[in-house]
Every structure is written in C-alpha cells, then in structure tokens.
C-alpha cells in the first residue's frame, strides 16, 4: 500500500509540475463539437470571478508558475476532501 501511495503521489507531482510541457490549448471534444455545430456561443463565459479560473492562479502573470500554483491548490483541496470523506466512512462504519 505504501509503495502504491508513493507511486501515485509521485505521478501527481510530476503532472502538476511538468504537465504544462505537453499541454494543448486547443478546444476539448465538447468545445470543438460546439464550435463545429455552431452552439459554442451559448456558453455563458462571463468573467473570471475565481482567482483560479482556467487553472491559472490569476495574481501570477507567468503561465507556468500560475498553472503550478493552481494545480497545487486543486491537489490540496482533493487531498483534504479525501481525508474528510475517509473520516465520514469510518464514522458510518461504527454506527
């Protein structure tokens, strides 16, 4: 179990730090379908109300550090969720 956790944690950090190297800014599947079929304009884009919109930490003006910062925040939030959910599962077990 320990080795699996280390493997996954290592992969996660690699993705956060180096993902930008392979990243493509092209639209994803649904976005390109929406463009091809002419309904892309329906998306309520609005402004970036979140400081982390589009996986860029807005206060940082350089794309790579801004994406790494956003990635680390997301990873931390998901880890935190996992810990809380784990507690909920244990508590459900006792009741």
């Amino acid at each position, binding site marked *: *179990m320990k*080795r*699996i*956790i280390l*493997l*996954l*944690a290592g*992969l*996660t950090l690699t*993705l*956060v730090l180096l*993902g930008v190297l*392979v*990243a*493509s*800014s*092209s*639209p*994803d*599947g*649904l976005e*390109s*379908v*929406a463009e*091809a*079929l*002419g*309904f892309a304009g*329906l*998306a*309520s*884009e609005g402004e*970036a*109300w*979140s400081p*982390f*919109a*589009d*996986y860029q930490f807005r206060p940082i003006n350089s794309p790579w550090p801004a*994406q790494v910062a*956003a*990635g680390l*925040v*997301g*990873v*931390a*939030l*998901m*880890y935190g*969720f*996992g*810990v809380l*959910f*784990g507690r*909920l*599962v*244990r*508590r*459900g*077990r006792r009741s």
Partner: protein
Amino acid sequence: MHIPDGFLSTPVWAALDLAAVPSVGYFVRRTQQRFDDARIPLLGVLGSFVFAAQMINFPIVAGTSGHLIGGALLALTLGPSAATVVMTAILFVQALVFQDGGLLALGANVINMAVLGVWVGYLPMKVFGHLGRRARSVAAFAGGWLSLMAAAVFAATQLSLSSVAPAGPLFASMLGIHALTGIAEGLITAVTLGAIERLNPAFVLPAEAA
C-alpha cells in the same frame, strides 16, 4: 466533456441537478457500508492524482485536445461507489474553484462522468477480470474507453434535449471525437493499473481471486 452553463435548457439541467443529489447521497451511504478500511488513505491520494491528470489537455486530432477523466481508474482502485463520490468532489472543485464546467450544469456533469462514467468503467473488469492478467489489461482499457463513450452518449442526449443542434450531427460528432479520446483514456487506465497491479497483485478491483 465538462458541460458549461448556457448549453443545457432549464428543464434539463434542473432535472439532472435534482437527480444527482439523491444519487450521490446513495453512493456515500453505500461507501460507508462496504468500503475497505485499508484503502481509506487512498481516497485523498487518488482524488488528487485524477484531479492533476484532468488538468493536462493533450492533443488528440488537429485542433482538438482531450484529457483523462479517470472514471474507470477510480472505479477499479476505490470501488465504484467511493469512485462516484470522489469524482463528484473533483467536479465540484473544478466548477467552484477553477470555473471548469457550469455550476447549474453540475448535476449533468455528475450524472455523466461521476455516476455513469464510473459504473460503466467498472463493468468490463467485473465481467472479465477473473480471466487472467491479459484479460484484466484489456478490461481496464475497455473500461476507460467505454466510460468516455457512455458519458458522451449522455451528454449528447442532454444537449439534444436542449435543442442546441440537430441530434444526428450532435451524436455523430460527440461519439466520433470521444471514440478517439477514449483510446488515450483506455491506455492511461490500463498502464496505470498495470503498474499498480505489479506492486500489489490483489489491489486492482474486483481482485482476481474474488
């Protein structure tokens, strides 16, 4: 595949938001009843890993990119009930913090990727996983591919019900592009699970002996 706000008509997103709440509630309860305590440390680790993997858009065909969704990967490591809950949390964080996927469309995205994508991704291993190592590899690949296709069929249905485009081209293009993205999803799922299975042969679910 994250549907933004604006694409779905009000009855469609509202109905899916209403359907998503009890569905996820049911899978939380089910996880509490049957989750393997030894895997509790993995809830955070795998959630983080799939979140990070979803951030990376790689090129698929000219002008279109794709990224891992990870439904099958989560289902085959955490079991499908816990995988639904963790994927729901990922979609929440993406919509609320990173503005990826609509807030009103969150129910649709949860039903497509966290419920359907996860459970369809689990199916091939459940059926063929006892047939040995090569079959398990193929089942992991098929789970990844099918989970994307299932989510694409649901997304196309919801878009079609919302009358954004004629059903024919909508289904053809959604399924066409995700059939390709699904190959990457299947490969990443099979390679990652293969590496994990080499570290611990009983780890990938459902375990072969079971």
